């Protein structure tokens, strides 16, 4: 059945008239996502790829009926308002694509999401793709590529890196391993759906038999997954790779999340915790498809 996005989601795009909004509206629709309409303040009445544009989410809902999912492409400093607007108009899942959203804004979005019993992916995410179901965000870039790169099957992918979300999924598909959902959790330190939340959704998804996780140094997401495995909350096999082995402590790359903080967050700490919890950690990225095949074969 896949997770987060299926054909059932009724999706809107906030910031649909911008450079990315326009391009990704086309991608999402052509891939089969049920996109209802878009929002850009001051641009009501325009059309983008045949989708009506509204000034506000409430006007959109009044015209088109209830919606449950929004993908946000507005500039970073406007994200907070757009997200809260969506939440207050019934949206239960937001995908926040933009990079550089101030962390205090994310804290507020998080508090509002909790109040409305909603979730968000990102910020700084390429989005989520469920094979043959739909795309939220920009994974694949073009529908024709997304269709040819990612094959349907029983492996779920969760990744801290956008580019790697696509590349792992492509290399798995090339190796004959099909995918349920692939999710880029986002590159920042504070994100709505860290690995542990995505892994939990995969655990409850009948289509998914194995989880591939691309972790990075910094934050405690991977450690949390390890704890959940130890506690028996995650029973499906996990194949993991942790990037950033060679990074100096304190060295910072463009992923805000890739910072070594105290004991949690180090490469060694993550690998050890995951191995102790029974995850299959590979140290060479190229080994992932072979390892997945091996573990799936053992399962049968």
């Amino acid at each position, binding site marked *: 059945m896949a997770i987060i996005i299926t054909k059932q989601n009724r999706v809107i795009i906030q910031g649909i008239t911008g450079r990315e909004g326009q391009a990704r509206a086309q991608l999402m629709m052509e891939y089969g996502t049920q996109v209802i309409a878009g929002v850009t303040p001051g641009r009501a009445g325009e059309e983008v790829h045949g989708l009506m544009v509204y000034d506000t989410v409430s006007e959109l809902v009044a015209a088109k009926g209830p919606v449950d999912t929004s993908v946000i492409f507005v500039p970073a*400093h406007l994200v907070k308002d757009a997200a809260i607007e969506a939440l207050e108009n019934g949206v239960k899942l937001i995908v926040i694509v933009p990079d550089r959203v*101030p*962390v205090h804004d994310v*804290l507020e979005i998080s508090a509002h999401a909790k109040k409305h019993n909603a979730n968000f992916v990102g910020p700084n995410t390429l989005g989520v793709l469920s094979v043959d179901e739909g795309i939220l965000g920009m994974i694949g870039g073009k529908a024709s590529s997304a269709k040819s790169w990612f094959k349907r099957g029983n492996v779920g992918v969760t990744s801290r890196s956008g580019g790697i979300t*696509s590349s792992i999924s492509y290399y798995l598909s*090339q190796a004959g391993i099909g995918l349920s959902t692939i999710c880029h959790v986002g590159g920042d330190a504070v994100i709505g759906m860290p690995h542990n939340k995505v892994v939990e959704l995969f655990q409850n998804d009948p289509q998914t038999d194995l989880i591939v996780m691309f972790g*990075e140094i910094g934050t405690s997401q991977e450690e949390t997954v390890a704890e959940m495995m130890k506690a028996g909350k995650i029973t499906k096999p996990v194949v993991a790779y942790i990037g950033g082995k060679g990074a100096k402590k304190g060295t910072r*790359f463009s992923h805000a999340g890739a910072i070594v903080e105290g004991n949690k967050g180090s490469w060694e700490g993550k690998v050890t915790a995951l191995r102790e919890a029974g995850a299959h950690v590979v140290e060479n990225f190229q080994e992932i498809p072979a390892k997945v095949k091996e573990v799936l074969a053992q399962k049968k």
Partner: protein
Amino acid sequence: MAKLYEYQGKEILKKHEIPIPKGAVISTADEAVAAAEKIGWPVVVKIQTWSTGRKAAGGVRFAATADELRKHCGDLLGMKIGNFAVEKLLIEQKLAIAREFFAGFIINDTAQKPMFLFSSRGGSGIEEIAKEYPDAVVTAEVDIFEGMKPYRTLELIKKTGLDPKTASALAPILVKMYEAMRKSDARSFECNPLVMTADEKVYAADCHVVVDDYAVFRHPEFGIEIAREFDRPPTELERIAYMVEKNDYRGTFFFFQMAEAADTKEAVIGFHGAGGGGSMMSMNAVSENGCKIANFCDTSGNPPASKVYRAAKVILSQPGIKGYFSSGSGVASQEQFHSARGFVKAFLEEGLDVPASIRLGGNSEEIAMQIIADFLGGLPVQVKGFGKNDSPDSVMKHLLEGMKKNGNKGHTVKPFVLPDTKKCDYSFQTMTGSIHVERAACAACTTKACIGSCSPKILKEENGAPALAIDPKEAKKGKCIECLACELACMAKGMKALKIVLPIEGLASYREKLTKGK
């Protein structure tokens, strides 16, 4: 992460009506003495650095007389702490401290809330204090909607065994400190120590603030030059790169140098990644093949060709690099021909003298690889594009072969010159540059290839030459996506009638200094 100096943190505290000792920031001994006369002797002298452990480094001193103060200034100004030289000192009134506390707010990533930390014992070595006296410490998550309520703050800090009088003197200050943290977009905001004087007044004696990089734009008052963490002052080239990033919001461009001058004896590589995860993996391929990187660079998030071009120009401002390695995640969502065109323009202008291996896997990689082959195949050094089925390791190995063929020669930095537009009589502005046409040269052109190559279709033919088909203001606002296709199309026809000028602030003088220094 952008750190503030103690005196900047204290300015924030002052704005939020949290008492701080009387003080002044100075950068000469004369200023120090004048400040101390105003404040009243004796005074405390503190170096202003981003590092902790100033006391241990001898950076905190006391002065009762002008002579003492001048001596301290002589010792401390210019003193090296790590890789930074001390430029400023904070001169402050010496408090009669009776008790010290620790108070701080930090963002808890997992809880997605600010976290409050308080210890009834403060001062240096707070980590050890917290371990040794766990009962002296309270922590609590703060609900964003509720904030720090005065009564709850009081309840919390009383758990550390404070007497009612002290606790009620501290609580209102902690409430204000939370406001200060939120208003200044701090990732962490700490006062260590917060002190109580003999006459029972509370002061923030020290203050450490780390501001969220992504919110620095809201705070021009902090004067943060580069909103990124450095363990040394940024190099001039890093400053130049940062200006490029700041002036163009499309995609991201991140650059930092490992060693300012590449040692020509070692195989040092100019590294150009795309996307954090893929870049890290690609860097592993560099080190596993026995090479070092001269710099880290990442252009990602669908940057225009112009940004990739500028990044390449910055990377090629490093003398001695023996190869150019570009590699990202391998399966990029963005159209890869944009990056390819950026590389082509930069490499041709520079007359590339070291081999380059460019991993371009992703959307339209075939076109991207073809562009590299068509335009750069004729260079005397080996340049090749690769696709998603080529691993970083195999691409890096290919680069090593090219370096061998090139006799392992290092890169020579040439003067930075913008394209010559003297003969051009038509031009328009783009978001970060300008496009110029020598219309007389177009008369003989039968294809008008530039016009057909422009995917946003903003060019039209006018009197046998290309001209803007839209309002020039629109082109400048971003309708011209700076894809560089028109210039390359013209070049492909053997012509050079259309030139794109993309200035890079400060690079010309930087390179001039480099070449003269030799």
